[in-house]
């Protein structure tokens, strides 16, 4: 570790560690907007989370699972050919190489351990594209838990392979036919299940959103991404990066990599939202850049909504970013100016997707392609500002195997099908 960049412990007492407050607030965001029936369970979870994180045996078991089962620490890979095109030294945090293909395995393993610790036997989850559902079903199989996954009917149809994966792993998949029949409705249905079955069931939420303590809890389970990347960058380059970039849907992968850098003021943090067909078109999933403050799914955050506070449907080529809200900590990082949030259109993301395939032989998730596209977009400006080539750590949060059909259709390269 080079002098001047290290901190005495990973548990910094700096500003990043002071949030949320005990009631789960990040400034004016976060909190708990839930039926009273759920409060007891949220309190129980909050206590379980805090005692678990203070328990060395729990932390050791989590670390061992991440290492032996999930395959972390993930690599920090210098993408030289992509770097040449970006005009920046681009280091990819290879979360795509984790078991189940994304950063999400960290969260589900942590929450599965907590579920067992609370003596609960059943987990429920919501899923959009199916990635969190598959990850939850994986952890449920490993921990011998009953598993029910709620998935919008529209999504079960367009992600039939992931439905099959979840079933192979022993989970029950329930298609949700209410509302817009997508991720937000799956989340509503999971909340309803939880209200009715809270005694024996843990709601294994898929992102750093929802009522307190979920945003803090999920962040704690995924923060290893940034802790690893910070050290790996120091080891590789002798310095901290100039910028850290990630895609933002609910925002767990972004928080996971940001958290370790929040107290390093010289490191710029960029979150790239799904701009869909452009924020001006109204067809996007950019809650921060194209939404307004409101309450959704138990938390106060930025939301896509109309003037009456009714949730507006989101649109993105990336199912994993296709959500009309965002984790409350991102809303706060935006308001404080600590992180910058910018929209990336479907077309920009797909161009970056193709570029990484062709320059590095890595097929990224379409979600992560938003971070790659954003990196390409900011690199020039950053270089001009610094007067030198910037170093940028990109969270390559997932692999693109699941997206082959969507991307193949987009590029018009599927035999027998037109784009």
């Amino acid at each position: 570790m080079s002098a001047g960049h290290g901190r005495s412990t990973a548990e910094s007492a700096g500003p990043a560690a002071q949030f949320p407050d005990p009631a789960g607030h990040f400034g004016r965001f976060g909190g708990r907007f839930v039926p009273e029936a759920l409060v007891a369970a949220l309190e129980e979870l909050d206590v379980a989370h805090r005692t678990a994180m203070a328990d060395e045996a729990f932390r050791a078991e989590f670390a061992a699972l991440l290492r032996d089962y999930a395959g972390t620490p993930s690599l920090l890979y210098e993408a030289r050919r992509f770097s040449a095109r970006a005009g920046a030294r681009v280091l990819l945090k290879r979360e795509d190489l984790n078991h189940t293909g994304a950063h999400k395995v960290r969260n589900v393993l942590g929450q599965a351990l907590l579920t067992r610790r609370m003596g609960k036997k059943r987990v429920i989850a919501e899923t959009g594209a199916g990635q969190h559902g598959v990850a939850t079903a994986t952890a449920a199989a490993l921990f011998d838990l009953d598993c029910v996954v709620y998935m919008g009917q529209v999504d079960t149809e367009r992600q039939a392979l992931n439905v099959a994966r979840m079933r192979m792993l022993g989970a029950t998949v329930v298609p949700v036919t209410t509302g817009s029949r997508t991720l937000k409705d799956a989340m509503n249905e999971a909340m309803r299940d939880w209200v009715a079955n809270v005694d024996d069931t843990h709601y294994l939420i898929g992102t750093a959103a929802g009522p307190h303590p979920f945003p803090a809890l999920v962040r704690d389970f995924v923060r290893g991404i940034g802790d690893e990347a910070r050290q790996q960058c120091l080891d590789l380059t002798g310095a901290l990066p100039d910028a850290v970039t990630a895609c933002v849907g609910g925002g767990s992968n972004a928080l996971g990599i940001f958290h370790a850098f929040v107290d390093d003021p010289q490191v710029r943090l960029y979150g790239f939202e799904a701009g869909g067909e452009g924020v001006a078109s109204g067809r996007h999933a950019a809650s921060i850049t194209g939404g307004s403050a409101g309450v959704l799914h138990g938390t106060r955050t930025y939301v896509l909504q109309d003037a009456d506070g009714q949730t507006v449907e989101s649109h993105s080529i990336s199912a994993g970013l296709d959500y009309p809200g965002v984790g409350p900590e991102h809303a706060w990082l935006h308001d404080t100016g600590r992180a910058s949030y910018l929209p990336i259109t479907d077309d920009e993301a797909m161009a970056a997707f193709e570029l990484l395939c062709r320059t590095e032989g890595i097929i990224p998730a379409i979600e992560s392609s938003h971070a790659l596209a954003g990196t390409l977009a900011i690199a020039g400006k950053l270089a001009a500002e610094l007067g030198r080539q910037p170093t940028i750590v990109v969270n390559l949060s997932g692999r693109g195997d699941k997206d082959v059909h969507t991307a193949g259709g987009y590029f018009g390269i599927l035999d027998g099908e037109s784009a």
Partner: protein
Amino acid sequence: MSEQSRIGVVFDKARAEGRAVLIGCMPAGFPTVEGSITAMKAMVAAGVDVIELEIPYSDPVMDGPVIQRASDIALAGGVRTRDALRIIEEVTATGAPVVTMTYWNPIEQYGVDAFARDLASAGGTGLITPDLIPEEAGEWLAASDAHGLDRTFLVAPSSTDERLAMTVEHCRGFVYATALMGVTGARTQTSEAAPVLVSRVRKVTDLPVGVGLGVGTGAQAATVAGYADGVIVGSALIRCLLDTPDEPTALTALTTLTTALSTGVRHPTTP
């Protein structure tokens, strides 16, 4: 507030008559704005004491399939928050108090104080807030005080004694006890948890206690009336207006059910 709430007067009168209050729920704008006014007036004519008007919301996590469908229909029909205020005004004119049940985001977007002001001026008695707990309700506590509105927070079988006392302390008008751990919707069996919850609430307050979730027949209403001050019925009434060939048929079914429920609350089963 020194003046007793209008809901409180209704509860007092019912208590003097040895019966429970019947509270009937209907979403604003379901099946249409005019249709919902007609339905609410029919409910009042057939014996509902208090109308619970629900402002439709796109993501109603406390509601079961019937209210979800009704809310979707109302929203697809274009109902706005300001339409709900107009409905409240019209129904209040019948003489029955109207309490409004709403998820929190529509109120926050309208502006909490502005909504409280307009609700009071429309004649609404106050709010039932299914996803707002007192800890997050600072703005609403101030606005309801400023405009003289009732506040009904929910208590649940899972609430600890400490939370129960804290929640009830912030209520005004009446307390809403959720009969079971679950979402709205009629059920074949009445809850065993509800009487226990009601007696826990009574230990910490003299406010009337209404019980909701799962009540859908006259017999169930009589059972709940045996231990609670108010019987809250939603999904069963709303279902009368779903899957119906025409409005007259729907209103006949609604009147028949309301009459049965009204008879039920007047003949409480001895607990």
